[in-house]
């Protein structure tokens, strides 16, 4: 019995399906470490997309992924603390949607321990898992055309920080001065999949 599903994705990629995000993060880390023949290894919510160059498809990926899933050692994600000012324009709306007071929304958002599950949407934008269940709210029906860089936001089961000004449909709860993405740094993305994150 394999816990890894394989789905087609054209002639230069395939999609591995995993049971949960933790497995996806482990599998992606393992593939990136051991398979230099791959071009991209992209974790998703519960999947890992792999791509390669050239007509010959790599073999053995699902076996290696299966090993990584079974490897229960705790992965070595970094711990990152982000200082947040909780003055987002949607705090009252989130309070209304959740039946909590704005202060309680802030307290619950700050108390949770998050894990960066995957990146996407924009360079350096990490989907953070671990949001307090009471804070799960839908995205705005009308996305904003401009959300400033450094804005801390929530939507669905995720929290996240907008790396730079962009359109956005999440609910804005605060802001941080941390630079989420800088192409000139050794580590361009402040947060990568597997990192543990706290808001302070």
């Amino acid at each position, binding site marked *: 019995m394999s816990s890894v599903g394989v*789905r*087609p*994705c*054209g*002639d*230069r*990629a395939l*999609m591995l399906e995993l049971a949960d995000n933790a497995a996806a993060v482990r599998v*992606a880390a393992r593939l*990136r470490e051991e398979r230099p023949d791959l*071009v*991209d*290894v*992209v*974790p*998703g*919510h*519960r*999947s*890992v*997309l792999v*791509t390669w*160059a050239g007509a010959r498809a790599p073999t053995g990926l699902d076996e290696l992924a299966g090993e990584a899933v079974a490897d229960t050692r705790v992965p070595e994600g970094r711990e990152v603390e982000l200082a947040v000012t909780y003055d987002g324009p949607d705090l009252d709306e989130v309070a209304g949607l959740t039946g909590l007071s704005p202060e309680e929304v802030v307290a619950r958002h700050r108390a949770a321990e998050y894990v960066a599950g*995957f*990146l*996407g*949407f*924009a*360079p*350096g*934008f990490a*989907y953070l898992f671990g949001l307090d269940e009471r804070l799960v709210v839908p995205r705005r029906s009308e996305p904003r055309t401009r959300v400033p860089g450094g804005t801390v936001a929530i939507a669905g089961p995720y929290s996240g920080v907008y*790396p*730079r000004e962009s359109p956005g449909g999440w609910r804005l709860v605060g802001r941080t001065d941390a630079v989420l*993405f800088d*192409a000139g740094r050794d580590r*361009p*993305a402040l947060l*990568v*999949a597997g990192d543990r994150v706290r808001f302070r």
Partner: protein
Amino acid sequence: MIEVVDPGPLATVQDHGRPGLAHLGVSGSGAADRRALDRGNSLVGNAAGAAALECTLAGPRLRFLAPAVVALTGVEERGPFEAKAGDQLDIGSYARGVRLYVCVRGGIDVEPVLGSRSADLMSGIGPPPVRAGDVLRIGNQTGAPAEPEPYGIPAEPRLRVSPGPRADWFVAGALGALAASQWRVRPDSNRVGIRLDGPPLRWAREGELESEGVVAGALQVPPSGLPILLGADHPTTGGYPVLAVVAADDLWLAGQLRPGDIVRFAARDFSC
């Protein structure tokens, strides 16, 4: 050095892009028509992947401030020829296709970002689009050029596709409908995605797909049923199901689809 007199509607510097960084949210980017870029670089004696000017829909008008060896590829082919200082290049609108590549021996020299000189219009990484009055430096990205591959934009573009990771999100026969229909390229298409009009491809289920990695060439289908063919500057993850994926060898032609064009898809392998 080359002075940009008029870049046309959109001109960007492009090379082979930034593969391998999708896990950081950084798109592959790079020339939308890789085949035209590669041919141009071969013609002027550059190594594959030297940076060139990618022009869109019309133009450019350029003035050479120093001698250069130049080739045009994509919608029009010229050269290689030697431009003298003071020579002007004046390209109007294009008859077929949407992208012209101006390749110069040595490549266009802009500061590489994350290993590439490409402008990524989705994420703002790399140089901004070229503006009138800009002066482009010529670099020394020469090397062993590859043998130029033949090139031609067909009058009736047809892209080969194979099933995508979420073909099972769609009603039975959706892949067949994709291949049987004519699709018109919408005007709001760009380097991020090519939006297509045609008979909607219906989902067989409700709800939201959890975000997952996507590739250039993926045919992503939002609830409207109208597919978006992801281009070079696509977001690295997406939440709409991918019905099918264009063959890697045909991706260059997607980069030449022009608003209003009719495109067809040919099924490659529907067995899985």
